[in-house]
């Protein structure tokens, strides 16, 4: 049983300032990631979570720097492995709010396997993908999210591979919460991240977060022209409808696309302690040791 968000509220209200740090992000001016950072900070504030109870794990990439730009426990892990680290953190202390974050290369290239398995495992964590459809930090190579024909330093004649579709993959992988946002729609994005955190189980927020330096195709303008808001009437609990919406909008719909109630992983582990191990008494009770030894007689 995960502690509910309500119980974590502290008497003195949390303000946005609590999530600020005194470090200037090294992102390029105009990078979509600024907005993601702000939306995340605002969501955490809105949820009145104490920064000390939040852990943000990031991968490697421009996006990956995010964990260092807000005031919360952070782990700047490895390229593609943020989710593995994040799941470990959640297991060790289920009372934490655990956010994993990273780039599209992180999530869908090197980390593809970790992403799909985290989805089906359904631990109560939130994954924010800053999807700029290019490799930013390594100076602009193609990403699995780049569209066909996309020209980069590693595909000077245009990419010849089909891009991956995050939402479709997440649907097939049984993710229990799937949303898509856009850096330019910061209010909505904040809302989506908040809902994702509130969701009990694995939540994916894929964010179109333009790279102003290396992606001259999928720009803010391009997205503004192509994204489609899911209608008010849309019911995210219907997988068929979700698949349809994704298909109809060519994967460019914004909003909560899918949501499902399923017990998160930690509620299913037999005998699980459901509390932070570092507070626990780790001494093995003598009778348990003796019982264990008896099996070897």
């Amino acid at each position, binding site marked *: 049983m995960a502690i509910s968000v309500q119980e974590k509220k502290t008497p003195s209200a949390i303000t946005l300032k609590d999530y600020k*740090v*005194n*470090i200037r992000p090294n992102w390029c001016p105009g990078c979509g990631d600024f907005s993601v950072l702000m939306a995340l900070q605002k969501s955490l504030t809105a949820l009145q979570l104490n*920064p*000390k*109870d*939040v*852990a943000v*794990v990031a991968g*490697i990439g421009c996006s990956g*720097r995010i*964990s*260092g730009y807000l*005031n*919360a*426990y*952070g*782990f*700047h*892990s*490895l390229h593609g*492995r943020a989710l*593995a*680290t*994040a*799941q*470990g*953190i*959640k*297991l*060790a*202390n289920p*009372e*934490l709010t655990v956010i994993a974050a990273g780039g599209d290369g992180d999530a869908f290239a090197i980390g593809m*396997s*970790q992403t*799909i*398995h985290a989805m089906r495992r359904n631990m109560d964590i939130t994954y924010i993908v800053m999807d700029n459809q290019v490799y930013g930090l390594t100076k602009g190579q193609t990403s699995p999210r780049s569209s066909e024909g996309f020209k980069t330093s590693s595909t000077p004649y245009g990419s010849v591979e089909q891009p991956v579709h995050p939402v479709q993959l997440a649907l097939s992988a049984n993710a229990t919460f799937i949303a898509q946002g856009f850096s330019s729609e910061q209010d909505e994005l904040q809302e989506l991240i908040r809902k994702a955190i509130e969701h009990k189980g694995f939540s994916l927020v894929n964010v179109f977060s333009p790279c102003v330096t290396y992606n001259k195709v999928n720009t803010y303008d391009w997205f503004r022209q192509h994204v489609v808001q899911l209608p008010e009437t849309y019911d995210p609990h219907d997988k068929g409808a979700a698949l349809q919406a994704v298909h109809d909008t060519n994967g460019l719909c914004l909003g909560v696309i899918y949501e499902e109630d399923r017990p998160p992983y930690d509620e299913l*582990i*037999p*005998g*699980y*302690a*459901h*509390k*932070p*191990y*570092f*507070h*626990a008494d*780790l*001494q*093995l009770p*003598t009778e*348990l*040791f003796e019982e*264990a*030894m008896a099996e*070897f*007689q």
Partner: protein
Amino acid sequence: MNGVVEELTWMVGGEQGEGIDSTGATFASLMNRQGYFLYGYRNFGSRIKGGHTNYKLRIATHPVAAQSDHVDILLAFDQPTININAKELREGAVVIADERVHPKLPEGIRASLYVVPLTQIAEEHGNRIMKNMVSLGATAGLMGLPVEAFYELMQKRFGRKGNEVVEQNMQAIAAGAAYIRQHYEKLEGFDLAPADGKSRYLMIGNEAMALGALTAGCRVMTAYPITPASDIMEYLVRKFPKVGGVMIQTEDEISAVNMAIGASYAGARAMTATSGPGFSLMAEGIGLSGMSETPIVVIDTERTGPSTGMPTRHEQSDLNMAIFGTHGDVQRIVLSPSTLEDAFYITADAFNLADAYQVPVIMLADFALCEALQTTEGLDPTQVRIDRGSIMTDEQLMQLPGGGQFKRYAITPTGISPRTFPSQVNGIYQADGLEHGEDGHPTEDFDVRQKQMSKRLAKLAGFHYDRAIDYEGPQQPDLLVVGFGSTRGVIDEALAQLRQEGHAVARLTLRCLWPFPAEETTPYLEAAKHIVIVENNAGAQLAGLIHREVGYHGKSSSLSQYNGRTFLPSQLVRLLKEWL
């Protein structure tokens, strides 16, 4: 007593999937209950059914820690078992074989063949699968063991299936024993001297390591199945519910190591266990553990390499990888258990050392140690203390001046910086695999880098581990035999024999491989007239390590075996004599 022997080696063999393992385990259990010391070694292939397998059990009135040279009694369920193992039979050995396979001894083998209608007797007693019990009975008959000795065991095993089943099995055993006594003359040399009847424990190294981890407070294990490491995850997943722990089978070893790092960062004692191929995949994660100073314990159960190699065979060839694998300069500790007791206590130590130095600790365990069934007098949980190292208390944190993040990577004289866990007030910091400043934020400042790297180096600069070495023998031996891991047992046995022949020989076992215990080993290496470094790998990896760290190129020789087998005592005696 007249004509009794102090030890016997019994082997049962047949097709994989035929119940060879359980036959061996049953017999081992029986002898354990009598108070004998045992060493059991399973020879099995990387397949599920079919192919030859055998279980070799050495039974003695004294502690034994290696395979014996010869087999005294071979229980053969098929002809290949006889053919494959014939050369291991001592002169005068007995082969008990099932009549149904029309057994024959290969030419030139001087052993007695006892043809017993094992299957037929079993069928007569109701069920052909009781063939195993019949054959154990035959063994008892040969060894002069009273069949009543089996009763308690049968009770334990079949009790809940009802008395009838127990009786049925007892009768099958009795029939096997009777058949031998009726059809074959009693032979000299098969009666074991009586054991002391003391209650001891029988386990494999993997179980001892798993129990060590459990006792040391490990509560999160992340792992991906692989031979011969899977026992560990399979053991812990059964035990964890009792202590609120969790074993999670990950999608691969990369996830396993990174998840363990996450769990440790958040305050759990966490570990993973794997073997060669998975260990290679963990290289990057081990580097992250080192760089972010997040303690983890990684058990590597070595098997025959390289690559997929021979998954069910013995080797000690991951030493280089354990110490030098992963890019960059990664501080780490590499330990290597050499006995069943080591497997327990050193694993427990591994968690304390990981916490104390905030580094990855690698437990390098070889196949023979992991899988061989051995006797222990007992393991003492009170010797295992749990020390989580330098952690900021909530009180200490409250006293910190506010503002700014916690200096997780504070520069300290020892290189060790107190850490915090998420949810601690005033303890917020970022763990980072990039070079970072004191608060964990990435830096590219050359001086900060220099300081942080030096800090990490400092942590292990004066490292000392109590159990780092084990030395046995005279102070100025003519020959010093150096090894690590499971070779300890066989070296001891070989040296005992050499000493009987009047040689001044000694053994030095390394149980800490890195940081290399130069101070501890040098006096012994210095004092020896000649050094032989014995190991089971093709690259003479331990020899290379010793040369690198302390030299002695001139007076040391290398004795490497890399065919997937352990050394045998007499073989080692023969080989070592080259230097005597």
